[in-house]
């Protein structure tokens, strides 16, 4: 353990009102900690620069999954376990449920939170591509009240996001409008469990008579932030999904991403596999049309 606990402050106010008041009084002075599955790893490695932490793990206002007629609201401090076990999530948002299952092992899923995944902003975060294609909205809370921002565009650069220093994510809202879609997700990692992704894809597609009327593709681990591939969507929509369209999509993937060489993988591999996965999705989409 490469940090000295004596140098760290951690407080746990019992309500979200108290927490946001503290954050407002000292913007940037307190680092929120939810499940701790990212923060505590940095801490143990001696790499946590923040010295004052504020726990938001048990705040009832940030927990719970609310099912409304047109959307579900996932409390930012919902754990991956709660997300993966929730009936409406598994039925209507399988890509998010799957991502929750892929994140670490069961012990980390019992503690890690969706809000933590968003704010930690790893380019390899498992849930974020799903949020991009489901077009999630984030409800942010501060002493100034609530505001809603689309998740698309929330992350503006590596570890940079549209979150004020005194704001918390209160909940993640997903519109309940994806029945009739093909949901596709794959994570490519170094092993079948407990792996940081080398490439991950989340995609949605809807066909009408073998034409794609809606195609959404998002990738993680191939850019400083998870990205929606707008170009693919332009190429693929409203055309029959034939070989040449699919090939142009592959080329569009390669153009859109900026994968790197790092300790886990290579840029060339990431690029090729990202292309392969998007092609696999489109081929599955095409095949799904043929079976109906």
């Amino acid at each position, binding site marked *: *353990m*490469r*940090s*000295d*606990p*004596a140098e760290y402050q951690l407080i746990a106010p019992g309500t979200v009102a108290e927490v946001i008041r503290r954050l407002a009084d000292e913007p940037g002075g307190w680092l929120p900690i939810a499940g701790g599955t990212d923060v505590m790893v940095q801490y143990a*490695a*001696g790499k946590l620069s923040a010295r004052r932490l504020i726990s938001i793990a048990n705040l009832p206002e940030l927990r719970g999954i609310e099912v409304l007629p047109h959307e579900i609201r996932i409390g930012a401090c919902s754990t991956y376990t709660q997300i993966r076990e929730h009936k409406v999530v598994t039925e209507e948002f399988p890509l998010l449920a799957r991502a929750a299952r892929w994140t670490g*092992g069961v012990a980390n899923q019992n503690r890690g939170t969706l809000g933590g995944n968003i704010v930690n902003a790893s380019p390899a975060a498992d849930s974020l591509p799903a949020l991009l294609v489901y077009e999630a909205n984030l409800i942010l809370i501060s002493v100034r009240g609530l505001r809603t921002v689309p998740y698309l565009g929330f992350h503006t650069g590596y570890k940079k996001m549209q979150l004020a220093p005194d704001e918390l994510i209160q909940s993640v809202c997903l519109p309940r409008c994806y029945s009739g879609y093909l949901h596709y997700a*794959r994570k*490519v990692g*170094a*092993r*079948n*469990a*407990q*792996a*940081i992704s080398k490439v991950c894809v989340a995609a949605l597609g809807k066909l009408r008579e073998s034409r794609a009327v809606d195609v959404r593709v998002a990738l993680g681990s191939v850019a400083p932030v998870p990205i929606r591939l707008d170009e693919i969507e332009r190429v693929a929509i409203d055309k029959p999904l034939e070989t040449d369209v699919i*090939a142009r999509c*592959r080329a569009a993937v390669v153009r859109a991403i900026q994968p790197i060489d790092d*300790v*886990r*993988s*290579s840029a*060339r*591999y990431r690029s*090729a*596999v990202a292309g*392969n*996965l998007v092609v*696999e999705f489109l081929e599955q989409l095409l095949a799904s049309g043929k079976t109906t």
Partner: protein
Amino acid sequence: MTDERVVGKRVLRKEGRDKVTGAAKYIDDIVMEGMLYGATVRSHVSRGIISKISFDPEFDWTDFVIVTAKDIAGKNCIALISEDQPCLAAQRINHPEEPILLLAHEDAHVVRKAVDRVLIEYEPLPAIYSIEESERQSETIWGTDNVFKTFLIEKGDVDGVWEKADFIVEGEYVTGAQEQLYIENNGMIAKFDEVHGLTVWGSLQCPYYVHKALMGLCNLPSEKVRVVQAETGGAFGGKEEYPSMIAGHAALLAMKSRRPVKLIYDRLEDMTATTKRHPSRTRHRTAVNRTGEILGGEIEFTIDGGAYATLSSVVLSRGTIHAGGPYHWPNVRIRGKAVATNAPPHGAFRGFGAPQSIFAMERHMERIAKTVGVSPVEIRRRNFLKPRQTTTTEQVVREEIDLGQLLDRGLELSSYSAKKAQFTKENHGSGIKRGIGIATFLHGAGFTGSGERYLASVVGVECSADGQVCVMVSSTEFGQGTNTVLCQIAAEALALPYEAVRIAQPDTSQVPNSGPTVASRTAMIVGSLVRSAALGIKQTLIGSGQLREQYSSQEFRAACQNHIEQHGSLKSFARYDPPEGVFWDDVKYRGEAYAAFAWAVYIAEVAIDVCTYNVSVQDFVALQEVGRVLHPVLAEGQIAGGVAQGIGFALYEKVIWDKGRMQNGQMTNYIMPTSADLPLIRVFFEEMGNIHGPHGAKGIGELPMDGPAPAILNAIEDALGVAFDSVPLMPEDVFEAVSKTLDNSLAATGDGER
């Protein structure tokens, strides 16, 4: 065999209850009054000269114990084989993370912080990082030519085979470093006072290795050094030699402070600073006849030893001797070489050179098969050693082993032919390519050649007045079943229940030196001695008329009590006696290399996802002839665990190096298989007996490490038609090869679109 009551039975692990209840005490679980916590300040350069050491004046250094090379009372080296490795670098640095200075403080967090506050300046020197760089000798970093050791094995007339050959097949095969990754990091506690001397407790395999190293380092006589093994959470060779270093460090701090000192590594320190499997490069050049029989060949086996000699000569020895596999070589020349690079010294890891050279041999057999136009099955069948033939070191195969039959059984168990046909048919147009591959090999148990004679192991058995039996060995338990198996053997020999026998904690002040717990020697060599010593007890009691040939537990107890009343104690010792008619020439490297070989056929089935290039092992058959299975559950567990490490060696475990320093020294980025990654590993045994082992047992601990990597790469070649000749093989490597093959075939057909 059939009337054995304990050996061959599924008795419960001797220390198992403590393990499943959390009562087992590993070194970090132990706390002593007044204990200080230690930390090691290590080099940031790969090679250089220390020009200045200073202590950050902004840091509070009161209450710190500081130890440098100047504090070493004896010789500043970790005595092993050569005496080239310093305990603490005084001036010259030869690898990253080389230990320079030691700190201790009451607060473990404070001592950790202090490490970064020791400011060391270096004059860097050019460093070398690969076998090829070492061979080029652009820098000489060790001795006169960077070579730790060479071996030459020559049999027959190699130079005459080339003109007779119908085919000459060449190949180069490479294996990377591998981290042992025991789940319990290295750790020690040391304590010193003038009266008792030095005591060290720790996570270790070889208490007497540590004992010897500490005597020299601390300038203490044998009776003033005591080494005790704590419960050890995995070792795999990674705690064979390294513990002498960390024990030395803890001892120095304890001697300077006169307080107990605990020195425990965290995962990053353990991975970056301690030993790994030797990287290797093997070159084969083989003369083969029309039907695929080996006429002869040359093998060049080279290993990267890192910065100091440590055990490289012995790893080299085993790798060199195993380089020819289970095949008949009428003529062969094998050159083994261990070279120096500026990495932390590489060391013992299960298999100890054999996984490296056997990987090469088994991949090379595939190449020979393809060249000759014969199947992987046939090429092996035609070359297998037969009884009364000789190995590459001219050791006569004295047992009636029928490797062809073993292979047949393996093929049947794995449904090899049916699967091969099925995969050939189904792979076309499939997104998953399947393949099946074979590895056949042997593994010698015990120390090589004259090694066991030199060790001269001693074992003791003592009985108490209540008829309880205590086995006294320095052989350690670290999961492989030492405690259980040795107690089984003693119980069987004395015709007593398993529960009546216990085993003493390995403590150099209490137990004799039965040699290190390595080389798959414990069951076979030490077990034989335990049996002898136990029989010695029986002979003593029967011989003095206190016991009849057949007796009950109560009668045994009474006899012990009587004997002890009359004589004070009841002990029996057995010393290793080299078997008759066994010769080994250390100079020519010829003769009976090992007392026994175990033989194996491993078959791996793989599936490759063409989308992600991930390779997964779908089925694994591990079939081996092991003399005798002393404990079915333990034996199966050893094989399954070894296969899992072998699968890791092949497909998952890559050490990423940058200038001699491991860059992925965390479990997030050094990838070992989880429960979600491994197939069912199907383990099968054959038992032919063994005259040198108790109840016919041979050593099996390291054997399973040799087969998986080549079997898997053979299966991948079967699936993809692409030959990979180095491990670890990552999806990125598969991608590069497949895309190159694709580019080549697209170029050939002129078709630019996929």
